[in-house]
């Protein structure tokens, strides 16, 4: 095997090793960014006292009388 071929192979091996190292470092950075991303806040839990009852209790409310101008007889 000639010196040129040996030299080319050594350079190629070094390039392959550098590529693997670069991939590992890049993977670490990408992973860190993924873990460091702002987490989405979970939706608030429903509050029990905010839930309306299924059947509303009928309440006897007196009718509100519409005010009437006693002089002219007009209502607002």
């Amino acid at each position, binding site marked *: 095997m000639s010196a040129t071929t040996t030299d080319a192979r050594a350079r190629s091996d070094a390039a392959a090793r550098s590529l693997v190292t670069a991939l*590992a470092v890049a993977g670490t*950075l990408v992973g860190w960014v993924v*873990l*460091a*991303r702002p987490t989405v806040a979970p939706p608030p839990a429903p509050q029990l006292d905010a839930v309306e009852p299924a059947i509303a209790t009928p309440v006897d409310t007196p009718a509100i009388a519409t005010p009437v101008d006693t002089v002219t007889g007009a209502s607002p």
Partner: protein
Amino acid sequence: MTAHAERPPWRAATAAALGAAAALVVLPSWAPRLVASLHGTQPPAWWQLSRVMGVVAFVLSWASVMLGLGITTRALRRWPGSARAVALHRHTSVLALGFALAHALLLLGDRLVHFSARELLLPFAVPHAAWLAVGAGQLALYLLLIVLASSHARRDLGVRLWRALHYSTFAVFALAVAHGWFAGSDRSALTAVYALAAGSVLSMTVYRVVRRAGAVTA
């Protein structure tokens, strides 16, 4: 003439331009997140980096085991070639050890989980629910250190002892899978990774054993 002089000059310029363009696109969104994770009384960067480096160490150790198992196969002899496969097998194992060490040592700076130096160095000393799984990772790290040291001292040790020690790589990988599966914070996201890695190593090991048995009986 040197090797560098033979390279066309436009390659470096193109690589620099592509790198600068990528940095312009990526950095404005990435940098603030990374800086934010370094702030506060309990900066989560230590914990986050440790987790990520543990996963990268696992992937590197998987690659190393697969390359080691596949060195004699026809596929790896064709590409990338046996010599380069051996070189990459060694390089990935050294990188795996470096990343695994960083994975452990970064926890010393962490203020979220609080590991002491004694708990990190001594296997099974972590007062944590997952102490067994953490201990498995610690054992894997020490075993990997022994395997790599034995490979560097192969001539002094002799092939037989070196091979015996080299077989403990399977234990290293099994312990690493157990550590990631039972102690890892990211198990739910990485279930497929652990399953694929374990399955591929098991398949390759069975293939090697069957092939060797066939070669012996033939």
